[in-house]
């Protein structure tokens, strides 16, 4: 018979020594997954390099900054959460954003829009319905979300869009047809994005300057927003233009069911 050399006390002490330290990714990963912290990476856009932030709830922020430090401090100041750099976007998210920027409106991208008002979210979701290569006036968004008088508030909400490009606030323009402001670099940047999406902004602004707000076809007697894909298929010979929806209505034109033109305040 041998006497056991390992007493329970010795074994228990040795077992306690098996405690390990978790890698930092365990804690930060849990906070990101629950939406209490974010990660970010760079993406290429029509406006050049941009930063995308996301967490377990969705994309939380898209913005440009001269460098990563500036982006991080802006994010912390605006959103109030911690953020750390990631090597790259998760593959599925990167693919979804690439498709979305290429004009695929069916691709679903989860968004983390906590802390924003239902009105703001409604405005942004409506902007998502505008097809690539087209624009709609602020007043159209206001009417579509059932707040036809809240045109200015729509403009403010769009200016506060935390996820520009992913939510295409650049596709909403002034009701007088001018391009209007843009949070990601002003009217010139907005023009660049719209041009990259196939819209001829020079043509659009020239039409607006001539007082044209709506266009129709004298064969179908349907009136559209000028950039509606149906309107752009009309040949010059059959194309008619209107300064207002009332003028179109009195000429016997009915509104397009696709782009749903609305009367605009002067």
């Amino acid at each position, binding site marked *: 018979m041998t006497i*056991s*050399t*390992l007493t*329970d006390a*010795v*074994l*228990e*002490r*040795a*077992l*306690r*020594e*098996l*405690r*390990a*330290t*978790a*890698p930092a*990714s*365990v*804690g930060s*990963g*849990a*906070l990101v*997954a*629950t939406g*209490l912290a974010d990660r970010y990476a760079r993406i290429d856009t029509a406006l050049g390099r941009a930063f995308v932030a996301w967490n*377990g709830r969705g994309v939380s922020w898209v913005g440009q900054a001269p460098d990563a430090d500036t982006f991080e401090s802006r994010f912390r100041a605006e959103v109030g959460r911690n953020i750390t750099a990631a090597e790259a976007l998760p593959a599925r998210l990167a693919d979804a954003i690439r498709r979305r920027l290429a004009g695929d409106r069916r691709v679903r991208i989860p968004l983390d829009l906590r802390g924003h008002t239902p009105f703001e979210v409604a405005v942004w979701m409506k902007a998502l319905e505008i097809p690539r290569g087209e624009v709609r006036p602020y007043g159209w968004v206001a009417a579509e979300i059932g707040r036809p008088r809240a045109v200015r508030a729509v403009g403010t909400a769009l200016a506060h869009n935390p996820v520009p490009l992913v939510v295409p606030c650049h596709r909403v323009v002034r009701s007088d047809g001018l391009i209007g402001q843009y949070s990601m670099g002003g009217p010139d940047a907005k023009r660049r994005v719209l041009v990259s999406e196939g819209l001829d902004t020079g043509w659009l602004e020239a039409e607006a300057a001539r007082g044209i707000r709506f266009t129709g076809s004298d064969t179908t007697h349907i009136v559209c927003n000028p950039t509606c894909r149906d309107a752009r298929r009309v040949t010059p010979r059959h194309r008619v233009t209107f300064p207002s929806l009332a003028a179109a209505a009195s000429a016997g034109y009915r509104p397009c069911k696709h782009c749903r033109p609305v009367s605009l305040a002067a």
Partner: protein
Amino acid sequence: MDTDAALASRLARDLEAGFPDLVEGHRDRLFTIALRLLGDRRDAEEVAQDALVRAFRAMQGYQPERTAALRLRPWLASIAVNLARNRRRRADDRLPPSQLEPMLATGFDLAQDGRSGPAQRADRLETQRELATALLALRPSVRAAIVLRHVDGLSVTETAEALGRPEGTIKAQVHRGLRELRAMLESEPAPPLTTTAPKRAERLRPALEAIR
């Protein structure tokens, strides 16, 4: 750092504000539990993170009174044990047992131990490796009882609560686990590394005794 009871009532008041402290206070032990149950560092990382996320989501669905009454240590341990169990079931289907041993090497952090010389550290590492390997040879129910009771340091009552077994069962499983660990560590190492390899227990004893 507040006690778990104070943390639980803070979580009940404001889950998002309190959760980072729960992560800070519990991530190492959840990682340890998963690592000693599974033997693989990558799996343990995922289980620990997943356990924290599941705890958050569970508390999101709880009434504040229920969150405030949580005993966080056994509750979180039970989440990690269940996740590790599910993962092991899947792992059993794909990994032959021989692949377990090389993965153990990554479970230890030599640099962290500044209390003894390089030779003793190496001894100790070897000892810990053997103990961790022996743990993995225990049957899962016994291993879970030992890991929660003696690695994580839960009381018998808390271990019973975390594993959903009677205290008497836990006591018997811990007793049995210690006995089996001792038997494994005292047996001849197979295959022997050198022809003059002493009995494992004789080699191990100084290193085990050195642990304070």
